[in-house]
């Protein structure tokens, strides 16, 4: 480094120092000025009563100003004085040439050694430049090159701010000072001692009188107070030093203590005044000082906060302060009340007495409990249930008599229980239960809801039919895609009829629900179920075929189309029937609504009469309230009527009835007039207006009653046909009974003949029985070697031979003969199968799954049994006579006649079946399986005619007759049950069904409708009576269908055992 450069460095060092001072002073001046302004503004705001947050803003602003100033200074110094180059730029700020020379001199001097080593430049020239620059630098005047203007300005700013603050303080009349004291209070407050300055504190709590609580003393506490508002607290403690004076400073929680927190009781000595303007909500309670250290005093708890002990010197200045000790206020809660019963909303009759059970509780004590009732459109009424009991818990019941309220159907009265406590400090607090409601039971409303459910189902039925029609009309259901659509519709149908049955069950549980609707839903659901099952049954094989990509044949598709057609027909029938029924119900509802309105008008008339007899302001008020309620009711009814009348099939509700309803619209105007006249004091005028309204109402009601029952006309016509059907059914059944009775007479003769023959062939029968036993044993012995395919034959053979042996043992020739006819072919087949299986088994045992030896053995046993069974059959055939051989000519002639009668009865039953079908087309009132039962009966009648005619078999003929009668009886019983279901409570039958004689409705699922009572046998009935045994045996002799014979036989055997 050269000397010249040292000169430059000196100048620059001086400049840097100067610059540092200038910048720091400027920052301090401006920063302080800005801070003063912020504080001044904050204090002014606080002095003017601004909220506490202003303090934060003001202090924050001041801090920000100071920080900003510091930041500015740092940045400034960095740029102007941090390095030699920066100082050079600062010095040469006013002279660019000098600045450039200084900067280049500094840089070149720093690199001089390198330059010298590398020879990049001439060192001499470099030194010369530095020397020249040093010369120039020496001439620089730092006071000019680094001016102090900005520092001066900062100072001026600070002075100005202070001056403004001073002037403001003088001019504000103390407000600014107060503001400053609020602004700086916390900071300025003397920090309380963290350590207590007293010993343990004894607290004696004296509770407010209304609480009736004993005073409570707490010793050795830290002084924390927790007590209800209004509690007087007596404090006793000992100071940790000798004190002249002491006090308690109480501070309330909140916004800086603008509001006094606790009031102090008069202290033993006058309390020093609260320090002016500085302490806000703090209050001071002088404590008595005894022996220089024992302190005592009282305070009254009003709000939460804290208190602290303060020792004062002789001049009343604080000598020591203890830490704050919390004061917590125990809240006195409002009473809690609840209604235990009834439920939040109950439906009752208009004259009901509602028993209200209530419970109330308060943390201190209940002063009063009251029932508050609000009638519809009326004012609240209080009825005090308890007063002055002053218990913490209470409860009881109160009867709310609704009769005097004269509430109408559907009106709602609300009530609640209210309880007050006895808080004498803050004032009584009231607690109330939830508001409960008593609704007057409205049958119309319930019915409406019920009908709405039925209506929804009805709409779904219509939608389903529409979907089915449109889907099926779009093309044949013979492709997988189309079939899938149809299957979806089937599923919907199934869900719908299931839901209909569900809703029907719900309706039956609802006392207001019209029974006919429930029955109708059941009936329609039943019909739909059958039709849907039929469709699904046909659809399944087609689906199967389509799955394996095979085209179903035309017959199958035809059957499906027919089943679809039947389902559509059932839907159509159901829809029309339900519509008629729903319309009828709605028409009846309209009449009910009109009647309700009429009744209310009559009540209003009575009230008006009473008012005329004894006018009073209260009566007038009540009248006007009633009119107001009635107007609401009229509006509601009109809306309902209008809603109900919508969508009527005009076949069921003619225009005249609907026009009558329109007249109801004048009723509101009539009521207005009544109200107006009454308000004017014109009772006569009001009566006249009411009479006018009565006339309109009566006409409307009469008109609606006359025309609203139109659906019944259809029902009446159907009823007539049903009655004729019933008579015909009774007649056919009676004649069938007579025919069976006549047949029975011949049957008995025949039985007698058979019995005589049996007696003569006793020995033969014994032999045959033995032979049957042997054959059975043969077959049993064959069992181990019976092949898989011969197993059914083995079972049949064994079963038939058992039956045969048993029948022979019982000397039942007919049954034995029939069984032998069954047994012989079965045993023959068994023997033949086994004969075929022997070579197979020998070839490969796997073919028969039996060892060849066993198969051979089995074949041998079976073969042994064959001649025995044949012999039994042939012998029985010889012994068992043809009925024609046993009965005389006269009896055979009679049987011919009976056969003809039976055929005639079958024809009549056919007519009945046809009629049933026609009636069912009109309305789905019959149980779903009624048709089947009639068909079954006809089948048996036909069989009976055959048995009596060609076969001349009175035994079997009578059996078929009994079965026919049984089917007829079940059919009749089913109809009676269905009719009973249809009978409502005062609704009338709803749809024609003349079968039920009396009795209530029985619950059922609608499908299995025969609910014949079953007598449960008692313990004494363990022995089967002889008569019963005989009957069973007789029954056993009757013919049984081939495939059920084995089962029937076993069944009877079990019964006999």
């Amino acid at each position: 480094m050269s000397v010249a450069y040292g000169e430059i460095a000196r100048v620059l060092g001086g400049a840097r120092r100067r610059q540092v001072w200038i910048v720091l002073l400027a920052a301090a001046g401006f920063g302080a000025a800005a801070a003063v302004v912020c504080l001044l503004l904050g204090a002014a705001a606080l002095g003017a009563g601004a909220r506490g947050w202003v303090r934060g803003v003001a202090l924050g602003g001041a801090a920000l100003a100071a920080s900003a100033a510091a930041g500015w200074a740092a940045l400034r110094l960095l740029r102007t004085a941090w390095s030699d180059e920066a100082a050079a730029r600062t010095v040469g700020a006013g002279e660019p040439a000098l600045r450039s020379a200084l900067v280049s001199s500094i840089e070149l001097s720093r690199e001089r050694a390198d330059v010298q080593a590398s020879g990049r430049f001439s060192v001499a020239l470099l030194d010369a430049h530095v020397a020249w620059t040093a010369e120039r630098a020496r001439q620089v005047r730092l006071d000019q090159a680094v001016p102090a203007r900005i520092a001066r300005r900062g100072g001026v700013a600070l002075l100005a701010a202070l001056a403004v603050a001073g002037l403001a303080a003088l001019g504000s009349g103390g407000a600014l000072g107060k503001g400053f004291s609020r602004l700086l209070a916390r900071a300025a407050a003397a920090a309380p001692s963290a350590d207590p300055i007293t010993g343990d504190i004894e607290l004696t709590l004296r509770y407010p009188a209304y609480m009736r609580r004993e005073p409570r003393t707490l010793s050795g506490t830290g002084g924390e107070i927790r007590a209800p508002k209004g509690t007087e607290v007596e404090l006793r403690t000992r100071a940790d030093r000798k004190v002249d004076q002491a006090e308690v400073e109480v501070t309330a929680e909140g916004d800086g203590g603008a509001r006094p927190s606790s009031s102090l009781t008069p202290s033993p000595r006058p309390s020093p005044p609260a320090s002016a303007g500085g302490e806000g909500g703090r209050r001071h309670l002088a404590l008595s000082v005894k022996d220089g250290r024992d302190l005592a005093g009282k305070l009254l708890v009003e709000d939460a906060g804290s208190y602290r002990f303060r020792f004062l010197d002789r001049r009343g200045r604080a000598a020591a302060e203890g830490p704050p000790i919390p004061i917590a206020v125990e809240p006195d809660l409002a009473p809690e009340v609840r209604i235990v019963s009834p439920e939040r909303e109950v439906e009752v009759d208009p004259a009901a007495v509602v028993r209200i059970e209530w419970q109330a509780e308060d943390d201190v004590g209940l002063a009063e409990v009251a029932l508050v009732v609000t009638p519809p459109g009326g004012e609240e009424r209080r009825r005090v249930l308890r007063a002055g009991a002053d218990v913490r818990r209470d409860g009881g019941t109160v009867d709310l008599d609704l009769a005097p309220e004269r509430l109408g159907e559907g009106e709602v009265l609300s009530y609640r229980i209210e309880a007050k406590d006895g808080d004498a400090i803050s004032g009584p607090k009231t607690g109330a239960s939830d508001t409960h409601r008593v609704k007057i039971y409205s049958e119309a409303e319930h019915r409406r809801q019920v009908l709405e459910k039925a209506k929804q189902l009805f709409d779904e039925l219509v939608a389903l039919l529409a979907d089915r029609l449109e889907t099926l009309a779009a093309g044949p259901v013979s492709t997988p895609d189309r079939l899938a659509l149809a299957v979806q519709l089937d599923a919907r149908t199934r869900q719908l009829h299931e839901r209909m049955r569900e809703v029907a069950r719900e309706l039956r549980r609802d006392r207001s629900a019209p029974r006919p609707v429930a029955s109708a839903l059941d009936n329609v659901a039943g019909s739909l179920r059958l039709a849907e099952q039929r469709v699904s049954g046909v659809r399944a094989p087609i689906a199967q075929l389509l799955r394996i990509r095979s085209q179903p044949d035309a017959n199958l598709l035809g059957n499906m189309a027919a089943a679809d057609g039947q389902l559509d027909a059932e839907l159509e029938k159901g829809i029309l029937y339900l519509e008629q029924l729903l319309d009828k119900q709605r028409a009846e509802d309209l009449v009910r609504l009109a009647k309700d309105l009429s009744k209310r008008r009559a009540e209003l008339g009575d009230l008006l009469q009473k008012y005329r007899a004894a006018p009073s302001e209260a009566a007038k008020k009540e009248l006007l309230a009633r009119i107001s309620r009635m107007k609401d009711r009229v509006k509601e009814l009109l809306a309902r009527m209008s809603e109900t009348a919508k969508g009527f099939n005009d076949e069921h509700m003619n225009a005249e009835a609907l026009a009558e309803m329109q007249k109801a619209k004048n009723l509101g105007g009539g009521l207005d007039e009544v109200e107006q006249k009454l308000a004017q004091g014109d009772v006569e005028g009001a009566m006249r207006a009411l009479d006018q309204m009565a006339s309109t109402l009566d006409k409307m009601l009469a008109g609606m009653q006359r025309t609203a029952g139109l659906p019944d006309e259809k029902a009446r016509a159907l009823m007539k046909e049903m009655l004729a059907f019933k008579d015909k059914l009774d007649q056919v059944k009676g004649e069938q009974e007579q025919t069976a009775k006549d047949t029975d007479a011949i049957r008995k003769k025949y039985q007698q003949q058979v019995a005589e023959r049996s007696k003569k062939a006793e020995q033969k029968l014994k032999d045959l029985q033995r032979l049957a036993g042997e054959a059975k044993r043969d077959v049993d012995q064959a069992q181990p070697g019976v092949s898989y395919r011969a197993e059914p034959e083995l079972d049949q053979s064994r079963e038939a031979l058992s039956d045969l042996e048993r029948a022979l043992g019982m000397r039942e020739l007919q049954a034995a003969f029939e069984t032998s006819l069954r047994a012989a072919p079965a045993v023959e087949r068994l023997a033949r199968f086994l004969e075929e299986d022997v070579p197979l088994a020998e070839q490969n045992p796997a073919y028969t799954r039996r060892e060849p030896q066993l198969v051979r053995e089995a074949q041998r046993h079976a073969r042994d049994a064959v001649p025995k069974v044949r012999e039994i059959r042939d012998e029985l055939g010889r012994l068992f006579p043809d009925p024609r051989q046993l009965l005389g000519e006269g009896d055979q002639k009679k049987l011919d006649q009976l056969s003809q009668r039976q055929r005639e009865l079958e024809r009549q039953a056919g007519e009945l079946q046809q009629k049933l079908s026609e009636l069912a087309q009109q309305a789905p009132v019959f149980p779903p399986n009624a048709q089947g039962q009639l068909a079954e009966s006809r089948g048996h009648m036909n069989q009976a005619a055959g048995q009596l005619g060609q076969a001349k078999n009175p035994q079997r003929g009578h059996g078929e007759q009994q079965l026919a009668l049984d089917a007829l009886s079940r059919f009749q019983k089913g109809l009676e049950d269905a009719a009973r279901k249809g009978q409502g409570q005062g609704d009338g039958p709803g749809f024609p069904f003349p079968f039920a004689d009396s009795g209530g409705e029985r619950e059922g699922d609608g499908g299995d409708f025969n609910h014949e009572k079953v007598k449960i046998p008692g313990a004494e009935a363990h022995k089967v009576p002889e008569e019963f045994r005989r009957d069973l045996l007789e029954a056993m002799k009757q013919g049984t269908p081939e495939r059920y014979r084995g089962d029937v036989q076993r069944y009877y055997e079990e019964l006999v055992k």
Partner: protein
Amino acid sequence: MIAPLVAAAVLAATVPDLQVPRGTSVGDAKARDEAGLGPLQVLKLLADEDVSGARSIAEPLLARNPSDHGARLAVGVLRIYEQRYDEAVRLLESSELGDPAGYLTLARAAQGVTKGHERYEGERVTVSYPKGKDEVLVPYLVEALEKQRAALERALGAVPPGKLVVEIVNDVKELSQLTTLGESEIRTSGTVAVCKFNKLILLSPKALLKGYEWLDTAAHEYTHLVLTWKSRNQAPIWLQEGLAKWFEQDWRGGGEPLSPVSAAMVRDAARKGTLVTFEEMHPSIAKLPSQERASLAYAEVVLAVERMVAQGGPPVIGTVLDLLAAGKDARGAVATALRIPFDRFLEDWKRHMVERPLPRGGEHELRKLRFRDDPKHGGTWSEWAEIQDEKARGYARLGDMMRARGRWAAARIELGKAYERVGARIPILSDQLALAALQSGQEQLAEKVLVDAIGWNPEYPALHVHLARLLARREDWARVQEHLLLANRRDPFDPEIHGGLARALKALGDPQGASREERFLRILLPEGPHP
């Protein structure tokens, strides 16, 4: 007709000078005047609808004696016949004779009803109508009446000179006020138009739920006016009504005088012996106790005229009227004209009523009558109730339900089932089926059903409108126009008719007509007439 006579009686009682001396002849005005017979004669002439005759007496009478009460009354009543209601009220009030025979009330009512009416002045017809949509009636009404006038002139040789005035009224109340018939009488008998007081009073079709054959009715009533004039009001009511009915369709070239329902009704009544007698028809068919009896009476009398024409040929009508005007009574006039005793004519007529072949649909209508007479079904009136077949009615109802739910294809299927059972005879069923078919894209079915149904029910407007709708899609504008005009004869306030006519006329090269119909369409659209 009786009112002027009652007035005369009232007048006679009120003004003693007006007692009519026996043997006084008409013609000597001065003598009449002196005898105080002028006003009475005026009223008598007015009673015979001889307005010009009455005017020739009344005007000079008042000119000579402007303060005479009788003259004021006579001219006041004349002014009613001239539709100069303000003057009528003023004169009648100033006559200080109170309200003789209700003329003052009538004049005031007419003044009130026609106040604010629009007026159309044609060459031979003047129409006074309420402002608003009744304007759409005017051109059709004028055309029909002019055609009827020409037809009657051809048939009877002459018609009354001067303009025919038609007053269209809004409702039954106004009709009652202008005709002096009671409201209940009008409702019971189904009266929709009356020719009285030298004008035709026509109830606007908007007053009826489904309109009515308003053009035929206007022609019918105009015929009354002509007959009264031609017979000097000497035709008994049965002949008046029979002839009016006989001629009422002549404006559109004639047609079957009996509707199927009327033919069925009359045969049924003839078989049961419940025909309306000529005596019962007096003084007015409108006063019969029910619409059914009134319809029956109309059917009977038109068959009487049919029988008369069958026996004596068309000129017989003019002969009978001339004989009546000449002072012969009806029995004698008919007997003379037919050259058979009147009782014989009556017997022939009764036989004719039983034996006459029923027009198409008559058998069906007869069954319907029985159906409606059945107390089981009599209480309710519903168009669907026309379907006797219960199953078909059920299907129709199902179709209706589907239609209401916008399920057109399903509706078509159900309505189709009903249609298959009862055929095209039930107009509402056919119409609904056609509509459902149209909506579900089955145009051919819709057309077939509509054409068949129109064959059975040519008067059912909806069938024509829907067929026109279908034809319009094919741009068969001539047939569109034809069917819409047929529909317009019953339901002129259907905007679709006028909208369709506008399109059809435009396509057929009648821009003026199209423009008129477009205007009518705007008038009839729900938002009302455009400025």
